[in-house]
């Protein structure tokens, strides 16, 4: 079972930038992490020979062997619970929950142990582990394949919860998550798995920071995961109508980058929060509250939210009604008490 360290080689001198899908970027991040650190192991359901139902672990078993990437019994609590034990004993497990809604059997392990063990032991035992969570809708999935469960995790003290929206962030943030001394819930927007972008593997991400995805001066749109490209689309349309929309990719749901967000909204004076999860008691609601508390004197209008409805996730043929789109974001922007708006004077 011991591993041959000779197998680990750094691709020194190789070009660090290439264009790839988010799925490929995640795959590359896992491969590079396994290559660089013998403590990194990847496991879950169907992550071996199949390469994961979304092919995120494609080729890892073949390249690195069964010891480094392996299939487990079909049991999510078992996957997360054994990862806790491995992390207690010097490993850096990266586990896959096949779909967000399938992660719920592991919820007790996540909340009672993953999130608390470091605190319980006064820092004597840290859990450097990553739980990858294919998340959200937009892929025409049937029931229990398209939930947005980030609020459960973001609500739990002790968990770092992040959600990339670009191939670059997918790579850099997953590397940072695996390198983190603490447990990370890594939300992967399924809808964006096949979107392409440039990935510079030398770029390092700092978990806990937001990112300005588009500069703008009139209004700040705060979005994360699959809603970032939708917000960018809305910003593009708004620009053609003469309105300058700033888009911030929140990307770190916990901890939250109050500093960047507060400065941004204070500068524009208007904000819309966009998320596809139901809005009630949500990450979007938390962001809205934080912006209100910190920016009230700077605001020209109430902070608005555009979210999924407070219904169970829609069946595939109805999901286009459920998911926020650019029009819904533009409508929210239009309602922000503009000076040229007769109705709101």
């Amino acid at each position, binding site marked *: *079972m011991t591993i041959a360290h000779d197998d680990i080689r750094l691709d020194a001198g190789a070009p660090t930038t290439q264009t790839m899908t988010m799925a490929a970027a995640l795959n590359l991040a896992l491969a590079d992490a396994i290559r660089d650190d013998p403590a990194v192991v990847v496991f879950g359901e169907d992550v071996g020979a199949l390469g994961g139902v979304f092919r995120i672990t494609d080729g890892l078993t073949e390249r690195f062997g069964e010891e480094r990437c392996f299939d487990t019994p079909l049991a999510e*609590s*078992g996957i997360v*619970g054994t990862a806790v034990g*491995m992390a*207690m004993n010097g490993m850096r497990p990266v586990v896959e929950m096949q779909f967000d809604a399938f992660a719920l059997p592991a919820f007790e392990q996540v909340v009672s142990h993953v999130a608390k063990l470091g605190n319980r*032991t006064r820092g004597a*035992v840290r859990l450097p582990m990553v739980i990858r969570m294919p998340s959200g809708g937009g892929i025409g999935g049937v029931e229990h394949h398209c939930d947005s469960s980030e609020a459960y995790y973001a609500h739990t003290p002790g968990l770092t919860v992040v959600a990339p929206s670009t191939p670059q962030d997918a790579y850099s943030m997953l590397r940072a998550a695996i390198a983190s001394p603490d447990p990370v819930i890594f939300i992967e927007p399924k809808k964006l798995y096949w979107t392409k972008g440039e990935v510079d593997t030398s770029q390092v991400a700092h978990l806990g920071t937001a990112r300005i995805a588009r500069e703008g001066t009139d209004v700040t749109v705060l979005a994360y995961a699959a809603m970032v490209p939708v917000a960018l689309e809305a910003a593009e349309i708004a620009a053609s109508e003469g309105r300058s929309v700033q888009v911030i990719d929140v990307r770190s749901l916990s901890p939250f980058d109050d500093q960047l967000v507060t400065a941004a909204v204070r500068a524009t004076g208007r904000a819309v929060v966009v998320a596809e999860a139901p809005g009630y008691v949500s990450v979007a609601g938390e962001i809205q509250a934080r912006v209100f508390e910190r920016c009230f004197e700077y605001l020209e209008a109430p902070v608005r939210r555009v979210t999924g409805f407070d219904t169970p996730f829609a069946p595939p043929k109805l999901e286009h009604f459920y998911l926020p789109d650019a029009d819904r974001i533009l409508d929210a922007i239009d309602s922000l008490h503009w000076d040229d708006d007769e109705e709101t004077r």
Partner: protein
Amino acid sequence: MSDRVLTPETLLPRDEPVRLIAPDGTAEADQHYPMPDLAHLRDAYRALVEGRRINDQASALVRQGRLAVYPSSHGQEACQVAASLVLGERDWLFPTYRDSVAVIGRGVNPADAMVLLAGDWHSGYDPTEHRVAPQATPLATQLLHAVGFAQAAKYRGEDTVVLALCGDGATSEGDFHEALNFAAVFAIPVVFFVQNNEFAISVPLSRQSAAPSLAHKAVGYGIPGQRVDGNDVAAVLSVLGDAVDRARAGEGPSLIEAHTYRMQAHTNADDDTRYRERAEVQAWIERDPLTRIRAYLTAHDALDTATEDRIAADAERIAADLRAALNADTDLDPEDLFRFVTTDRTPQLDEQWQMLRDEIARGAASDAVSPTGGSR
């Protein structure tokens, strides 16, 4: 792997629990499980006396308000003692909230083992120091941690064995199933040790399982199961020791069920007269693990009055130290609430600690102005 043949017959436990010493102290020879030698058993007896004294001292400290709660293992000390004695230096123990005596047996200071129950913090010892995981409260969850921990050791080629403890109630949990299944599939060096003390708070074993015994569940996972008289410390040492040896030799996990009894209520907050007859409790008191091993050792001239007195005096000293530690007021730092949540404190927690610190400072200032402290 060994050449052990995996058939249901070889995996099934015996019809009767393994017993090496009868309740009256007479030896019962066993073909498979050898009697531990007298020196080993005398060490176990010492640990039993100390464990009983710690249990009863901790229960008294609850009545005096120094501990918030204490789930006593009074009556189960043979299991507790054997669990700590069968492990080597490099091995790990994954205990539950009722396993304080086993935790202490691994070298954890008794007062540190009581920190959770005193309410000072959620765990009072560094797990890496004595190779004891924090005592788990959610049932069966720690069994999976034990499996993962041992899996990491196996991956690195270490010969660490992990002993995972749980009770009869925990065998109904999903994590019990997942832990045994994972351990079996990956041939992980874990020994699952169920202390069947007949009750999960008030619910009897008959409501947990319809299996012939809890050890019979092992066959469903393809691992050996065995039953042992949990009040016979010699038998528990022999059966657990055998399972630990097999795990270390690469023969994979096993499931051991000890038949014992929770002689006291679940905790001080429980009233066991509501759900069990006194006669049943009395019958088990007569099968006390201490009297059995004492009778055996005395009959074999391995325990004289002077030794007994010395052991009793040492146990008294441990109890006195525990009393003193828990009667002393501990100095708690409210900043600890924020200190360990993550490795680097988040800006949000910085803000919240600042708020609490200001609140405390204002409280101290107003106390200084109004020494009676009643003006607010």
